[in-house]
């Protein structure tokens, strides 16, 4: 690995900037990365699909589980490509089986569900560390960028699921409107097409996301190493060295040469040949030096929770402010000199006064609104509107009816005032139904609606009489067909049975 051949600009970046750079790389080499994924993954997918024909989701789960194997091929390719532009993807593909199966147990079991998998992957794949050394190394790397690696995984898997839904929605869009498919959820779950579709959509999503995930993690790793091993400084020195060497400046060449003795490789920085104790004492010495005791003053914004700022004692803060303000004001007046000694008492008096005010306001409100009843929300009989006094233009007040309705009607009949006679009977019947029987009639009810209501709510005998009366009334009013003398007499005779309250029982 020759750092001077690196194809990106090396500088310490913020982790998210590094991920962004990784995405740029993924876009740059998208096709080779996709091919490196598809060539091994498609056959595996097809075979597992055939094996799990009945349960295609198992095939998807299987491919998902062995995804790190395919991703390590992509990782190897970009790691080589980053330092040597001439590398071809076919070269990585030829070694695919070796790369994929290298540390397969770690990849598929130990590290499979690691939260920042793509960030961890280079440690095993490129540095080839195992066991404790690997975890120590990871710990060092994670100290600065672990959470970003985790977020990369979280966002990657979210985008995968969004893509799965996207593929679904795309399929949905192709259903013609005329088909008017109204899926319900149970039907959808039991559909035989569901799981193959999810499987295919899931595979497509994994294919699309993997280059970005791998490159993002890889660049996070590279960035972390840039921070730790000062690659940028090293590169600058190299640059200086080559410049000065060209011009024959020996001093710079010596400095540069002195700095260049570290050999860069994928392996972690070379360890010095020191015993544990010796190195520990050197470390301590350095730690005690001035470099680690620099005092720096920084200014930052910090959120201060107002609740954390406790008011003195148990009393509300504003009372104290008010008390303080009052005492400050009064101090100035000679009469109240020394009032600050009474500060606590003043605050208590203020509190008592305020509570008194609250109680007084409540008392006033109760006094002010004492006459107003709460709105009646029940749907009882009280909520019904009062009975109408007019119906179909007929006066329906009990006071307006003669004492003896039958007598009055018969006398009108004898005077040939047929319409008035029948009208009187009909009016009396309606008045009785509304006021005595509380039938819920209103002015928009037509005669037949009144009749139907009466038949529904009243005893049969009364209903029948009212039906007959209504029939005669309609014929007279709208068809101008008078009833015969006999019919009128019969109506009058039946009136007595209609008029009786006890019928209702």
């Amino acid at each position, binding site marked *: 690995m020759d750092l001077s051949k690196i194809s990106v600009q090396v500088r310490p970046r913020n982790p998210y900037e590094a991920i962004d750079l990784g995405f740029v790389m993924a876009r740059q080499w998208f096709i080779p990365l996709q091919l490196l994924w598809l060539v091994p993954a498609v056959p595996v997918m097809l075979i597992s699909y055939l094996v799990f024909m009945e349960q295609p989701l198992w095939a998807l789960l299987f491919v998902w589980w062995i995804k790190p194997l395919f991703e390590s091929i992509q990782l190897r390719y970009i790691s080589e490509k980053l330092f040597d532009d001439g590398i071809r993807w076919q070269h990585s593909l030829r070694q695919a089986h070796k790369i994929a199966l290298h540390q397969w147990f770690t990849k598929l079991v130990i590290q499979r569900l690691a939260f920042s998998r793509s960030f961890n992957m280079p440690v095993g794949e490129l540095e080839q560390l195992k066991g404790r050394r690997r975890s120590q190394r990871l710990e060092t790397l994670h100290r600065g960028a672990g959470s970003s690696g985790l977020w990369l995984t979280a966002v990657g898997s979210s985008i995968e699921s969004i893509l799965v839904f996207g593929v679904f929605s795309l399929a949905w869009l192709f259903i013609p409107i005329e088909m008017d498919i109204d899926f319900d959820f149970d039907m959808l779950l039991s559909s035989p097409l569901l799981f193959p579709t999810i499987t295919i959509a899931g595979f497509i999503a994994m294919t699309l996301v993997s280059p970005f995930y791998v490159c993002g993690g890889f660049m996070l790793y590279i960035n972390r190493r840039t921070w730790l091993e000062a690659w940028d400084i090293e590169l600058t020195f190299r640059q200086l060295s080559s410049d000065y060497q060209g011009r024959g400046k020996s001093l710079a060449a010596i400095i540069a040469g002195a700095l260049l003795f570290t050999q860069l490789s994928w392996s972690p920085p070379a360890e010095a040949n020191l015993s544990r104790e010796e190195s520990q004492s050197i470390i301590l010495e350095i730690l005690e030096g001035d470099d680690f005791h620099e005092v720096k003053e920084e200014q930052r914004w910090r959120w201060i929770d107002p609740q954390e700022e406790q008011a003195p004692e148990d009393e509300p803060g504003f009372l104290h402010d008010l008390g303080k303000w009052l005492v400050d004001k009064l101090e100035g007046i000679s009469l109240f000199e020394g009032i600050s000694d009474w500060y606590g008492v003043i605050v208590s008096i203020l509190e008592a006064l305020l509570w008194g005010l609250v109680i007084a306001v409540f008392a006033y409100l109760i006094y002010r609104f004492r006459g107003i009843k709460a709105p009646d929300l029940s749907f009882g009989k009280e909520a019904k509107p009062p009975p109408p006094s007019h119906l*179909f233009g007929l006066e329906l007040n009990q006071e307006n009816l003669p004492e003896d309705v039958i007598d009055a009607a018969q006398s009108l009949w004898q005077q040939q005032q047929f319409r008035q006679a029948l009208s009187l009977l009909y009016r009396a019947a309606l008045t009785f139904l509304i006021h005595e029987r509380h039938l819920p009639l209103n002015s*928009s009810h037509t005669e037949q609606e009144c009749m139907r209501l009466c038949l529904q709510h009243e005893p049969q005998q009364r209903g029948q009489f009212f039906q007959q009366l209504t029939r005669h009334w309609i014929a007279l009013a709208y*068809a101008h067909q008078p009833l015969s003398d006999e019919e009128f007499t019969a109506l009058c005779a039946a009136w007595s049975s209609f008029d009786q309250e006890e019928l209702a029982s």
Partner: protein
Amino acid sequence: MTEPTLNLNEAIQLVQRMREQISRVVVGQQQVIDQVLIAMLATGHVLVEGVPGLGKTLLVKALAKCFQGQFGRIQFTPDLMPSDVTGHALYDMKSEQFKIRKGPAFCNLLLADEINRAPAKTQSALLEVMQEKQITIEGKPFPALSPFMVLATQNPIEQEGTYPLPEAELDRFMLKVLIDYPSEQEEQDLVKQVTTGQVQDTLSVDAIESVVAATDIPKLQKITAQIQVDDAVFDYAVRIARSSREWHSFAHGAGPRASIALIRAARAQALLDGREFVTPDDVKTMALPVMRHRVALTAEMEIEGLKTDQALQQLLQEVEAPRL
């Protein structure tokens, strides 16, 4: 006051027989049958709204069969031309003359299926024949057959790619009838009737006897127009139509055509009920089908989810029944 004439009684009987005949094949849509008969007696046209497959075509066929009328059907599509409705002139090479080829509108009962699928130009080709009862082809007017009635259908669910009928044309329809799914029992009967001893999927109208001659229909219409209406009932109908114009739920109310249609429909309803006079109940019953396509809900009411029928019911509850 008029004594019920023999003619009137005959008319009542004839209408009842027609109703029975149609009910024999159109199962479970009694209200729709009644309203279509009412429109025919009142010389009106009907706009039927309902999802497909509820027997709209069958109803029209049955109605045509029971008075031996001619039945025409046009399936409205976006590319339908006015001449596809009315007819056109064709140059005959042999006689070296233009011959008029009459369109499907020359019939007694015209079923305009899915009328809102055709653009306004074609829809308005129907306007002339609906209102003037004549059809103009190449500038030459031809009288439409008598009786003539249009039954247009609309599908309430698929609104994409449709041309909503303009208000002016909606106003030409006397009634808007809503056709809904039959009840469970009715649907059972229907399935039995369709599947027993029959090969086709639709009910056949063969079972219907022709009980009226086509020439009797204008007589029936005339008798209907003579049904007695008291001034109070006229007043009630007009008040209903007028109050819809001020009613808070409506952006615009029904015009005078609604009052006219209300009284005409109420007369037919009375005849169908076997009465020789109209009661306020007839008006109230016909208010919904007559008014529901002539009013438009305000935007706020639509947002609140109020339906036109509900708003009309509220209106009817507020309008006082006739004063005598």
